[in-house]
């Protein structure tokens, strides 16, 4: 089956003004992101705050156009697509944002919120839209009487259901979920994750699931892409990533994830420092200032994604075979 999303060296560069008398600076939020997503699968994108996950999400949903590379969605190159094709593509890909409080218009009733995309993109009559909205409410586990209520009358988890209902209104093929459960308590998080799993099964959706929570990702993803400072540095099937992580950064991320039971965590490999400024990324491998395996080569030359078993990984130490085998922690309960 051919992939539904093909990203080939996709990049997004912002010009940032740094005050009246200084030249603008380039901020490379995403660089040379190459990956594919197959129809019906869940690709998770993980990485620290500021590594470019949301920027990638905005390109995938065509809120922003890539400043470099080619992005092909459902067979159409987004940069060269005509108006009609773009319109179709926009309903093919929908997004659910992290913040269930900020992403819904507080002055609109739930019904209007869900019908908005239908109003803009279809020529359904008011009655048809209403019928559809009520069906969508049921689909996400809300009730018909919620149609006339305002978002502030709902809990965080329910608002996220409303956001999901709106996102599936146009019967998209792809849902981009940008931290859909990060703001929710664990019990509510479980409800939303179950809902997403149900919808995927029923509607055959493709998910691009952005998260920094590796326990959630392990539960939902088929494949995982780890990003660091704007670039993908490891892409692997989910089980491979958790049991046989390659890139030193992936290993550090896994080690930093809290254990599921007391006493389970051993001494963790500490990841020192923070994500460097994207204005002046380190030379060579962007991870080298924090990497215990950095050497002369990695400080000057930049590794690119190479195949290593089932994994694609960008690291010279892996290529040179000088990385010790991973010590995978028992991450989930057996």
């Amino acid at each position: 089956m051919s992939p539904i999303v093909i990203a080939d060296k996709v990049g997004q560069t912002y010009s940032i003004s740094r005050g009246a008398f200084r030249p603008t600076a380039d901020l490379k939020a995403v660089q040379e992101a190459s990956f594919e997503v197959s129809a019906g699968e869940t690709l998770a994108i993980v990485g620290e705050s500021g590594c470019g996950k949301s920027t990638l999400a905005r390109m995938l949903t065509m809120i922003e156009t890539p400043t470099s590379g080619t992005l092909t969605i459902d067979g159409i190159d987004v940069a060269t697509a005509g108006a009609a094709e773009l319109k179709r593509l926009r309903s093919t890909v929908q997004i659910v944002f992290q913040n269930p409080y900020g992403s819904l218009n507080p002055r609109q009733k739930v019904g209007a919120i869900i019908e908005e995309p239908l109003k803009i993109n279809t020529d359904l009559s008011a009655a048809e839209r209403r019928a559809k909205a009520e069906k969508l409410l049921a689909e996400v586990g809300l009730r018909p009487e919620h149609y006339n209520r305002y978002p502030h009358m709902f809990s965080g988890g329910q608002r996220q259901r409303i956001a999901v209902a709106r996102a599936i209104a146009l019967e998209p093929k792809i849902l981009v979920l940008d931290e859909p459960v990060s703001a929710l308590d664990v019990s509510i998080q479980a409800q939303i994750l179950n809902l997403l799993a149900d919808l995927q099964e029923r509607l055959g959706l493709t998910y691009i699931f952005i998260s920094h929570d590796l326990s959630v990702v392990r539960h939902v993803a088929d494949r995982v892409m780890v990003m660091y400072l704007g670039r993908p540095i490891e892409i692997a099937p989910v089980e491979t990533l958790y049991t046989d992580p390659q890139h030193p950064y992936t290993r550090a991320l896994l080690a930093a994830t809290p254990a599921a039971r007391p006493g389970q965590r051993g001494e963790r490999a500490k990841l020192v420092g923070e994500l460097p400024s994207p204005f002046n990324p380190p030379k060579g491998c962007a991870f080298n200032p924090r990497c215990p395996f950095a050497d002369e080569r990695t400080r000057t030359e930049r590794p690119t994604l190479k195949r290593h078993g089932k994994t694609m990984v960008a690291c010279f130490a892996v290529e040179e075979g000088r990385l010790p085998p991973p010590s995978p922690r028992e991450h989930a309960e057996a």
Partner: protein
Amino acid sequence: MSLLSIRNLSVTFRTASGPFKAVDGVDISVEPGEVLGIVGESGSGKSVAMLGLMGLLPPTATVTADEIAFQGRDLRGLSRRERRKIIGKDMAMIFQEPIASLNPCFTVGQQIGETLREHLGLDKAARRERTLELLRKVGIPEPERRMRAFPHQLSGGMSQRVMIAMAIACEPKLLIADEPTTALDVTIQAQILDLLLDLQRERGMAMILITHDMGVIAETANRVVVQYAGTQVERQQVVDLFDEPRHPYTAALLAAMPERARGGRLPTIPGVVPGQGDRPTGCLFNPRCPKADERCRTVQPPRQPRELGEALCHYPLGADPRRPEDIPPGFGPDGLAGFEGGARPSDITPDMRGAAR
């Protein structure tokens, strides 16, 4: 003698729609050097209880308690001034939102310096020296430069470190950390938790760690209090709590962790924490509890003995006294079966409380 001993702490807010008891009958004791975890969903009164202890609630709040003793000294009835002498020095707190709790108008150095001046009376040179030492201690690179930074110039992780530096400036005996890592990335979270635990071990400092993350509890706490809708529903040693939860709510929280999930669907807890308008009668958890029966809906549950996790429950797990035929269908006498499958999403709206019964 316990370092901190609180008995029957309650907090009631005066609101437009009548009084609201956000914290109800909370007991806390902390021994020197111990890490006590308080866990619960948002809105369960974790922050309000601690702010009540610190005397940091707005005037609309009424705080009552049978005892609030710190190092044997009763804090009730102390004047604001006397309380201030203790708070910030021997007992310090880190807040949920680091950026919001730093003063935007002063540099990092000025803010830490002020704490040192107020509580330790250090002179200017000594303050500078100690500030640099503290910033280094909490892992801030280039402390000389960061001292002159304003809060908005720092990342989330950096501001949390500054908060910690400020909180440990006077070497407190008790540190209360309210969701210290909730706003942070896992990598930074791990760094901050390690830092807190290092400080705790090195100085024998006691810590109350508030979180809604069971994983964080598993990694850090010695003893755990589970809080629900203002009440403490279970109190256990951490290992026992994870191995043998006694309150159905604790069991449900554990079961909902994705890392503990076995199959495709996660077990869920239907409904939400009740707020001001919808507090049920009987057990506060009964609308969401699959084990609830008529008694749970009408009679407030008793506090069980220590061997049963001091659970606030009529029918604690592992010791449900009901005859098997009287236990709501679908559940064994002690079983968690009800949480195993998870509810259908369409079962989960507040209007349908009790659907799980």
